[in-house]
Each structure stands twice: as structure tokens, then as C-alpha cells.
């Protein structure tokens, strides 16, 4: 079972869910609900097609379907961030939890696009397929989301965002 392609994608689904939702447990709830649906719909997946895209599309649907019930909406907290990332912020110009918090204030549609592009490193076409929207919509969400994130994390536009590795 551990070799099943679905299982191999779990870490990436968790990373995306954590960034999307913020809270560790709410994020894993989202992953669990996504996996449950994926296992039940496995017969609908076309062998040979991109399983990552299929799983991310399912996660998007699960997330959007529960948006009204606010099931996964929990206050973003420091605890949500992986230990390593929090540690890495010490002494840095950029407080990494700042970008997490800033991300949390973006509309969900912009957050999804930014994460799929930046973290999941999908092409715009892949993002469009996962979210079932036209590529033009992806581009406008990306553009608006990035503008907003830039202003939120930098305060003034003069200070560049720095990450000390």
C-alpha cells in the first residue's frame, strides 16, 4: 500500500493544505477528507494521467465545498508552521510567520493560485486544470495576489523581501 501513488503524494498534499489552511490539524483534516474521496473515486482516475493534478483538484473541491461550513477555518498560529521554518526565522529580516499570516489574509482564490505556482511549482495550465478555471483567471488571481502579498509583507515597497537560508 505504501507504494501506491496516492500515498506517495501525501506529503505534498499536507504541505499545500498547511499553507492553505494555516492550522496543522485543520490541514490534516482537509488531507484526510481529500484522501477518503480519492480512494473512493480511484476508479475514475485514468491510469497514465497526472495523479498529482487529480489529487489537487479533489482537494480544491473538498476545500471549496466546505468553505461555507468553515470547517477548515482556524486561526493561523505559530504552531502551524513547521519547527524548522520557525527556527530559521531567528535573526532573519523576514519573519517567516509574517508571510504565513499575510497569506492567510488573502482571498482563498488568490492563496490557492499563489501556492500552486510558488510552492507546488505548477505551470499556469496545470493550476487552471486543478482549479477548473481558465488560464486568464489564474493569471489575474496570481497578479492581484502577488501585489497584495508584496504590500503586506514589505510595508513600504522599498525594502526587499529577504530570506536568509
Amino acid at each position, binding site marked *: 500500500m505504501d507504494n501506491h501513488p496516492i500515498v506517495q503524494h501525501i506529503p505534498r498534499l499536507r504541505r499545500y493544505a498547511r499553507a492553505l489552511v494555516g492550522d496543522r490539524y485543520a490541514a490534516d483534516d482537509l488531507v484526510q477528507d481529500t484522501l477518503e474521496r480519492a*480512494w473512493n473515486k480511484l476508479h475514475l482516475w485514468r491510469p497514465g494521467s497526472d495523479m498529482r493534478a487529480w489529487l489537487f483538484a479533489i482537494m480544491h473541491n473538498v476545500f471549496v465545498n466546505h468553505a461555507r461550513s468553515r470547517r477548515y477555518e482556524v486561526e493561523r498560529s505559530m504552531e502551524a508552521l*513547521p519547527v524548522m521554518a520557525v527556527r*530559521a526565522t531567528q535573526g532573519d529580516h523576514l519573519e517567516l510567520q509574517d508571510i504565513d499570516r499575510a497569506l492567510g489574509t488573502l482571498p482563498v482564490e488568490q492563496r490557492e493560485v*499563489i*501556492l500552486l505556482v510558488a*510552492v507546488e511549482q505548477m505551470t*499556469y495550465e496545470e493550476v487552471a486544470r486543478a482549479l477548473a478555471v481558465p488560464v486568464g483567471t489564474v493569471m489575474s488571481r496570481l497578479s492581484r495576489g*502577488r501585489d497584495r502579498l*508584496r504590500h503586506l509583507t514589505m510595508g513600504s515597497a522599498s525594502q526587499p*523581501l529577504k530570506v536568509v537560508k
Partner: protein
Amino acid sequence: MPTPDDADLHAYADGLLDEAGVAEVERYLAEHPADAERVRAWRDMNAALRHTYNPVLDEPVPERLTARPPRRWRPYAIAASLLLAGVALGWIGRSAFFGLPLAGSPASALARQAAVAHAVYSPEVRHPVEVWAAQEDHLVAWLSKRLGTHLKCPSLATLGYTLVGGRLLSGSNGPVAQFMFQDGRGTRLTLYVSTQKGDPRSTAFRFSQEDKVAVFYWIDGNYGYALSGEMSRADLLQVATLVYKQLNPE
């Protein structure tokens, strides 16, 4: 790409341009510092986001996410559809067009009944069995007595399945024993043992796909055996072969 537009700049920041595109955008950015600054901010943001969330990849995955969840199909709907299919097939089986009474034969009825029983009981969370595996001796003795034979409960541990328990059911020819097995991820198999009417006879393994439930079944003397599971034919055959070997030691 004479003058790159915003989409090109984003694609550049995200590393989605080909070599020519990259050169084009870099030439443009060299002369447009404000755009160059935006693009740099986007790239920094990408890096910051990856830096923030990538460590999640290295966290151990919680156990609740790695276990394949028990099937949540609607057992009663499937049982009903199987019964309906059974009625339809039974009707066709009576037709003179069929030289062989395939669908209406007792053997295929066995497969169908076993699949229905599997669909009804295997998704049960609290009451999948009447007698749990902890009382295996009692279970086997009880079911043996009701079926009027000496039943053996196969051990499928070598294939990763452990006994959940068993229950008594009623079949068209009287009492039926159902043993249930489960593997580490919750996939369940049931072995259905029924008495057969008429002269004792034996058949080879036969396979039947009853909706989502795969069934291997065979008749051995006065008893019919059917192993059901929601899995591929090949996987189920492996288990069925082991069951058969254990019930018929050479």
C-alpha cells in the same frame, strides 16, 4: 516577444519561460528598474513560501492519513442492485437461448448470494461479525454444528489477513457460515460456506464479478465455497488458492 507583458514577467519569475523568453525578459528588465523590482519581489516571495512550507514534506505523516479508509459505499444499495441483477440474470438464465444454464445455475447463485452477504456485512464497523476471532474455537464449533459438517477456518496470515470473526446466515438451502478476514489497511474478505442440494459434486474455481465485489467460488462435495472481496481478480485468486489449499490438504 517584442515587449514582455505582465504574464511574461510572472512566467519569468516562476521559471516557466524557455531560453529565448528568458533572454527577452532580462533585456527588458535591464531597462525597466521598476518592473525588475516587482519581479525580484515575486521571486523572493516564491522562495520565502517554499522555505516556509517545504519542511512539512519532512514531517512524519500522521497514521490517520496513511491508512486506506474502509470503503464507504452504501452496502444496502449494492446488495439491492445485486439482488436485482440476480433476478434479471435468473430470468435470462431460464431462456431457451442459453444452452448452458449459466446464470441460473446453483453455482452462480452461490456467487451472487456470497457477494450480497459480503456487501451487507463487510462495511459494518461495530457489528461485522456475531462471534469475534478471540473465540475462534467456539465460532468454528458452532458453525460446524449448524452446517452439519466439520468446518475449518483457513489461516490467511501469510497474505496479511487476520480473522475478524464469523456469523451464521440463512441461504436458500439452509444455514450458511460466513467468515470475515481483514488486512492491515482494513480491506475485508469474506468466505461464505453453504450447503448444496442434490448429488455431491465438485467444480473447479470459477470467477464472478458482482458489481464491485469479486468472487471466486467452487463446490466441493455437499458444500459450496465463495470468497468475496472488493479487489482485483489476481489478488483475490491468490487468497482463494490459499483458502482452497488449506481446506483440502493433500
